[in-house]
């Protein structure tokens, strides 16, 4: 009989803790590079850590930096669970930010408790609508969403740029940007003396559990995971796969839109052409590193946010280029994707005994 309940337990344990292993490997490679450019890796890594979590202010800053990444990657975790590869979060974030600024600029008469949720909702819908176009193309015509979403990024970014150079430009500013949004639409700060704002708190305390429940405890999440595991099986089980693909895309677009609103209402207080230094792409690495699990994604985005902030400190104190954050991010994508692929192959190719 072809039976045996598995292959070595070791492989399974390695698979479980692999995200941590890949982070360690990435930092090891980073240390080597730092050493090669003539800096003491121990010193550099210390400043990296210090810039991440060295004092309360750095912790607050890390969480602020992590929030847009968290919002994007929560949405991507939903899409990737259904194996819908939305690479367009950056564009969806820009559309969200643009709409957030437009709504905010017209909400000076509203109380904060109404204005802010309204702005976030509008931004989320804007992101979702931007994702709807590739979603429909994918569901109805099987056009690869990777290409369409990547292309939609450029359209969104240049459209935003046009709006900021033209119709929405603040006539008083030397830069292509909107006027500062009214103060009643600013996200309140939670702790006096720190920039830690309500958007970061809301994302961590409300949205993370919400996405966790959605993915692992809801029928919609179940459908999406089933679609992600095997479209054929999902169809066979009576699930409307096309609808699932559209939902996955809309939800991830919604969260990317929220990331745009978070930056406009919590950090910059206006819309600018460089509102995001690539959070939409960082989110891809974070979603994968967090294993498409809301809690994993939260931890990974805090790590990534801290890495970006820490790399500035490391640059100031140890003269290591700022780009290292993105270097590590790229390494992580490669290590996570390749490593997990190999581990899965090992697990599937277990030896089977024959009669």
């Amino acid at each position: 009989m072809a039976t045996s309940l598995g292959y070595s337990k070791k492989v399974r344990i390695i698979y479980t803790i692999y995200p941590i292993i890949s982070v360690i490997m990435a930092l090891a490679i980073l240390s080597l590079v730092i050493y090669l450019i003539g800096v003491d890796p121990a010193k550099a890594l210390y400043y990296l850590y210090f810039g991440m979590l060295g004092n309360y202010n750095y912790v607050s800053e890390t969480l602020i930096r992590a929030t847009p990444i968290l919002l994007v990657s929560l949405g991507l975790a939903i899409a990737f669970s259904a194996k819908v590869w939305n690479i367009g979060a950056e564009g969806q974030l820009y559309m969200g930010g643009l709409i957030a600024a437009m709504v905010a600029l017209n909400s000076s008469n509203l109380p904060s408790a109404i204005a802010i949720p309204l702005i976030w909702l509008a931004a989320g819908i804007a992101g979702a609508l931007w994702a709807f176009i590739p979603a429909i193309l994918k569901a109805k015509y099987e056009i690869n969403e990777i290409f369409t979403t990547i292309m939609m990024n450029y359209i969104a970014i240049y459209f935003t740029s046009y709006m900021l150079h033209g119709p929405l430009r603040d006539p008083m500013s030397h830069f292509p940007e909107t006027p500062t949004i009214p103060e009643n639409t600013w996200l309140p700060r939670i702790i006096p003396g720190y920039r830690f704002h309500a958007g970061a708190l809301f994302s961590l305390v409300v949205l993370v559990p919400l996405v966790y429940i959605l993915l692992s405890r809801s029928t919609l999440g179940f459908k999406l995971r089933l679609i992600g595991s095997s479209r054929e099986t999902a169809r066979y089980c009576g699930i409307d796969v096309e609808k699932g693909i559209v939902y996955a895309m809309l939800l991830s677009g919604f969260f990317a839109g929220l990331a745009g609103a978070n930056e406009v209402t919590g950090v910059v207080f206006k819309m600018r052409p460089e509102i995001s230094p690539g959070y939409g792409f960082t989110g891809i690495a974070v979603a994968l590193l967090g294993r498409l699990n809301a809690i994993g994604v939260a931890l990974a985005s805090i790590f990534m946010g801290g890495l970006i902030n820490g790399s500035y400190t490391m640059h100031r104190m140890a003269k290591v280029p700022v780009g290292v954050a993105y270097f590590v991010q790229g390494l992580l994508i490669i290590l996570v994707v390749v490593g997990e692929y190999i581990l899965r192959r090992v697990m599937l190719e277990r030896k089977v005994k024959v009669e």
Partner: protein
Amino acid sequence: MVVKNKDDYVVVMKGITKVYPGGVVANYNIDFDLKRGEIHGLLGENGAGKTTLMKILAGCLTPDKGEIYVKGEKVKFKSPIDAVKKGIGMVHQHFTLIPSFTVAENIILGGIGGEEAKKIKLDMELIEKEIAEFSTKHGLPINPRAKIEELPVGLRQRVEILRLLYRKADILILDEPTSVLTPLEVKELFEALKRIVKEGKSVIFVTHKLDEALSISDRITVLRRGKVVARIDNPKSISKEKLAELIVGKKIVFKSAKAEVTIDKTVPVLNVENLRVLDDRGAPAVRGLSLTLYPGEILGIAGVEGNGQRELVEALTGLRKVAEGKIVILSEDVTNKTPKHVINLGVSYIPEDRIGRGVALDLSVAENLIAKVHDKEPFSKRGLLNIKSIYSFAKKAVEKFNIMVPSIKAPVMYLSGGNIQKLILARELSLNPKVIIAEQPTAGLDVAATEFIHKLLVDFRNKGCGILLISADIDEILKLSDRVAVIYEGKIVKVYDQVEKIDLIELSKHMLGVTSKGETVER
């Protein structure tokens, strides 16, 4: 004496065993040999393991067990390139030519021979001239400048063969070479093959058509369910009937614990009228098929794989569009309704493709067990899953169906093939079905699992469930069915109302499309 064998046998395969991930045993302890200068027919139904065995010989697959000797030398192929170096070449069922390249370009893809190899620049004119001469010499004339996409299938196959010969292959494997050819092209191919073996080369001719195997082979090896069932040294000595029986298996009809159930058999649970369904390429696969299934019976659909069974099942379950005709399940017209609609009517479907269709490998055992009912109470309420009731259901199902799992929370990818099939059965039979469509329910499973699944199916039949059993395994069909319908070329060509009275030779002939006169039915 070893030296003599070395010359006589160009290929010796000993004890070849190949198990696919998921536990399907494609080849089990197979011995096979090939003599110099012979055409060796490898005969068997689809799924008997012929292609797997040949892919192992051609270096495309590695065996789990067994030894291979080529020209007296023990070999371990890591890739097809290793096999080519030993002179083994294979023409696959699906051709591997580049459509936009010319014949000559395709032939030299694997490297150029002779003087030309030393030059940097390709002198296509010279190469084309060489290939034209080369092809005429082998009795396979072809225009080297023609583009592959412009050639009919018969000539494309000729290019495949020429390419092997050009690479100096002297052991040629042809996998179902005639399935794409017209009778005239078949005749030409056979003549060419006979000429090739006269040059001292050897040919393995893989087929499921017994007429062809008989007419061309010097020797025949018959495979069934991954094992060698017969080796025939003198094909002229064997009758077609005997060979047909060897291919589909020795029939031992024994009664299982079937209860005599008295159920109203006036109202069918499933009625199919004049159904027409297209396959993936848009060609008709089901061509005007009608059948009726009553409650409390098992209707066996016997037939060689690839005669429209797959498309029929997919049409019945809502997974494939119906081009024409009508499907009525439990008095409701379900033609072109969604899979969900068909499931909700009480139709369970045990798919042939267990891994690809039957389960989601990444999801847990428990999740797979409730995949079809996850949005129904008690498993979920207002869009939220009830984990407790899912786990308690899964625990019971795993126990009841004796599924060996590390944990109900473990992903299904950790399960063996037999246990995956039991899981699928557990899910499907828990739906309280009124109709069960079972597609190759025991293919590749061991005796114990097969018996277990047979018992479950009979139990459900006794409870008044209508079961449509699609199987390439005649033993299984005869053992379980109350009635047997034979499918050939997308139509039911014969229905036997009494299994006991089936003439096995006649059944085999219907399945293989051979009329009572012994002639192949025209397509």
